[in-house]
């Protein structure tokens, strides 16, 4: 089963991670690797005879490119340990990690065979949907050792400040299954025992078996009524106490009437009751509820800044390096921040070139250069080489943490709008009650007995099971289809909310644009290969973000030799092969042409004192934004809020036109206030953002959607997560939500038709148990079929399935 015969070498694909390799220098035998990290993972697995990993899926590994050897000393801290350890006694411990990188069956295989890498690991088990791994190990090992092993094979667990997620969710789910199981069991048996009734066998022919069966039915229906159906009764009671009539009220009314009437029929009149209808109703309702509670286990919609923060940080201590929990940083600690790492506290730069990317925190697209001695605020990410900083505040006092203490984050976001089903069921309840009283009143004139029968029969037949099932099945199915297209909503109610949106607010950086990418425009005299060579060599030495972008933009080769000087805030001066190259703001490049521009994203260039042109760096907008903007602005008011400067206004207007609103230089608080102001004028606001700077606004908006390049990445607390690759489908999702609402309305109409027939029999006093037992499932099942096929057909037509 060794899969060495695969012809991987032809296009130089890394045997471990499947990325392209620059050359075949890094290899073991005939297996090529893209980097030493991947190679080392392979050799670990190879030495432990675990190459099955590579035969389950092709190139399953997680790339280990430019990854530093991390130090996990902080995991020995007792407070930190309790975050991961689920259970421990004297001999063994069980820890639970979240590993978002796992993506294929090979991942499951290797993570469940960890015991082969270390004898102290006793067992490990993956929950793929939750992307979690539980490891049981004996206490010779430690949390730190386990994490180091996981990291060495490329599966570093998520180590951030986020609170441990409780397992309450699982218990809730189990309860749901118990309820369904019991309801299904009782429903089936009651149907079986009601057979004599269905076959119209008269009590005389059945030798008393009828009575026995009826009483057995009562026994079987008791757990359904008191256990499985209890949530409907409780919910109805609660809503009545708040003087609201929600969908559960008519359901509870129906259940209670069915149960009581059946008891009376069986005990006093020895007739068959309606217990089959009652248990069936509860069974179907619970199935609907299960369908509705689709959750995305691996996603977390409740994240705050804490999940953005790392758990440990490298500090310098007596010439050595160690790691400590970030919560234990004190003023005066020397912290080492490496490429891509986050600065957790406000600090002063001591050593190294600080190029801090704040795009996630403030929305500024370009990284900011920091000189030694400057203050760096918490939340930025270092890009480039490692820096050394000295903390000047503790984590609880830092800029980012204080940002989060806004009251909007402490209050629970509540859904203040009432769903369509609840509005309809309110009228439905009153109409049915009115009808029942009215028709039984008329019967009262002729026959008191029939009057009571008619009263209960109306309530039985009009039980709104179809009404109650249409929303969960329509929205639940829509939610699933959207999920398959990488748009994950927190719950089904949001589908209906989406249809009410009037205004869409976009953040710019990272939402409309792709962070870390830029469009470069060159204007000026033509760049010959020689000139390109010179400019490329000049910018090569600079760490300024714009220089890096120009370096990537120009093709050709470069030299590293030459004289080089960089003046902060002005530009670069370089002498290469006898040519002088100047790049930067206009003053620096050409003092005569005085046209100083404040726009930071223009780089002018001169070679040998001759002005040759300028590079304009634009934000890189998402593909298909043009189409999307076109579609959206026809239906909604568009607002663009940006933490960045005004330089992109012209480009934004190209997308969204002059009628949309644009605001720049917005702080997180400004964004929040803007949305609150919109809401005060009666608008329903959908906010789409990506970073921490939008977190407040996402929370304030009616629907906050966070856009993410990868769903396992950090995203602030929100109602939905949209993966960037499905960005262009966004209008389709909105239309789909609108269509779902139409389906719900249509299924309400169907349900009314059924009710009309049922009521005809009920009012005329001809409702028999068998009729109720037929009508009820038929209406429920047809609603389920109608709603699911309706949404599926639409999704198929629009290419969503």
């Amino acid at each position, binding site marked *: 089963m060794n899969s060495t015969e695969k012809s991987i070498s032809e296009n130089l694909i890394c045997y471990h991670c499947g990325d392209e390799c620059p050359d075949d220098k890094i290899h073991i035998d005939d297996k090529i690797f893209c980097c030493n990290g991947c190679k080392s993972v392979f050799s670990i697995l190879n030495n432990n005879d675990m190459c099955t990993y590579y035969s389950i899926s092709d190139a399953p590994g997680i790339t280990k490119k430019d990854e530093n050897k991390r130090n996990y000393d902080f995991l020995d801290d007792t407070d930190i340990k309790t975050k991961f350890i689920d259970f421990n006694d004297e001999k063994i411990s069980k820890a639970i990690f979240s590993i978002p990188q796992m993506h294929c069956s090979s991942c499951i295989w290797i993570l469940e065979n960890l015991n082969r890498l270390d004898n102290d690991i006793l067992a490990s088990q993956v929950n*793929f949907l939750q992307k979690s791994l539980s490891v049981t190990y004996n206490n010779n090992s430690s949390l730190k050792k386990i994490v180091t092993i996981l990291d060495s094979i490329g599966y570093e667990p998520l180590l951030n400040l986020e609170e441990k997620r409780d397992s309450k969710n699982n218990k809730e789910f189990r309860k749901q299954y118990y309820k369904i199981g019991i309801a299904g069991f009782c429903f089936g048996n009651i149907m079986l025992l009601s057979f004599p009734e269905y076959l119209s066998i008269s009590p005389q022919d059945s030798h008393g078996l009828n009575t026995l069966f009826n009483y057995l039915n009562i026994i079987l229906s008791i757990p359904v009524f008191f256990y499985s159906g209890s949530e409907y009764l409780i919910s109805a009671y609660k809503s009545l106490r708040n003087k609201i009539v929600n969908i559960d009220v008519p359901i509870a009314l129906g259940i209670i009437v069915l149960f009581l009437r059946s008891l009376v029929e069986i005990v006093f009149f020895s007739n068959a009751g309606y217990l089959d209808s009652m248990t069936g109703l509860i069974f179907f309702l619970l199935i609907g509820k299960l369908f509705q509670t689709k959750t995305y286990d691996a996603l977390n919609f409740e994240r705050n800044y804490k999940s953005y923060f790392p758990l440990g940080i490298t500090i310098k201590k007596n010439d050595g390096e160690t790691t400590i929990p970030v919560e234990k940083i004190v003023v005066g600690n020397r912290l080492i921040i490496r490429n891509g790492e986050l600065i957790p506290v406000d600090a002063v730069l001591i050593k190294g070139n600080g190029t801090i990317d704040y795009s996630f925190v403030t929305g500024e697209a370009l990284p900011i250069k920091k000189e030694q001695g400057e203050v760096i605020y918490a939340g930025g990410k270092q890009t480039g080489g490692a820096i050394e900083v000295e903390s000047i505040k503790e984590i609880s006092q830092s800029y980012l943490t204080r940002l989060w203490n806004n009251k909007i984050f402490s209050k629970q976001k509540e859904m203040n709008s009432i769903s369509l089903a609840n509005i309809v069921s309110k009228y439905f309840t009153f109409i049915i009650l009115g009808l029942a009283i009215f028709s039984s009143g008329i019967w009262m004139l002729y026959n008191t007995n029939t009057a009571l029968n008619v009263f209960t029969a109306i309530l039985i037949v009009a039980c709104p099971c179809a009404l109650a099932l249409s929303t969960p099945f329509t929205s639940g199915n829509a939610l699933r289809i959207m999920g398959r297209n990488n748009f994950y909503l927190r719950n089904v109610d949001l589908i209906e909310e989406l249809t009410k949106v009037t205004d869409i607010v976009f953040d710019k950086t990272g939402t409309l644009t792709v962070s870390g990418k830029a469009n470069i425009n060159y204007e000026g005299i033509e760049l010959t290969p020689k000139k390109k060579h010179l400019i490329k060599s000049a910018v090569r030495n600079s760490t300024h973000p714009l220089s890096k972008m120009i370096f990537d933009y120009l093709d050709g080769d470069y030299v590293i030799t030459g004289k080089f000087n960089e003046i902060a805030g002005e530009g670069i001066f370089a002498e290469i092969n006898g040519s002088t190259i100047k790049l930067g703001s206009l003053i620096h490049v050409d003092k005569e042409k005085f046209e100083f521009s404040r726009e930071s994203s223009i780089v002018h260039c001169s070679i040998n004192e001759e002005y040759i042109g300028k590079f304009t760096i634009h934000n890189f907008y998402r593909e298909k934004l043009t189409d999307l903007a076109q579609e959206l602005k026809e239906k909604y008011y568009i607002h663009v809020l940006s933490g960045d400067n005004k330089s992109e206004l012209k480009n934004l207007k190209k997308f969204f036109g002059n009628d949309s609103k644009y605001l720049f230089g917005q702080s997180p608080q400004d964004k929040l206030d803007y949305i609150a102001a919109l809401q005060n004028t009666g608008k329903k606001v959908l906010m789409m953002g990506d970073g921490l700077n939008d977190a407040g606004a996402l929370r304030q908006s009616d629907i906050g959607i966070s856009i993410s390049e990868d769903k396992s990445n950090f995203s602030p607390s929100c109602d939905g997560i949209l993966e960037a690759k499905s960005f262009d489908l966004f209008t389709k999702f909105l239309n789909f939500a609108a269509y779902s609402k139409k389906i719900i309305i249509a299924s309400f109409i169907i349900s009314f038709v059924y009710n009309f027939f049922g009521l005809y029999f009920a009012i005329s006093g001809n409702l028999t148990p068998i009729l109720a037992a037929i009508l009820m499932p038929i209406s429920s099942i047809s609603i389920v079929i109608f709603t699911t096929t309706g949404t599926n057909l639409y999704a198929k037509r629009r290419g969503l399935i």
Partner: protein
Amino acid sequence: MSVIIILIGFSLLVAIIFLILFIRAVRSGQFDDKYTPSIRILFDDEPKKDKDKQHGSSK
């Protein structure tokens, strides 16, 4: 006809056994993760530790 009473008793008993088995399955966590076991079952067992060369028969 009285045999029906016994038969009903049996059928209920069988159904109750199934219900109990179902509840036990839920309680033991079989419904907590509905995806991973479906993959886990596809992994081949391999001889442990000792490097037996026969272990590559076929898929």
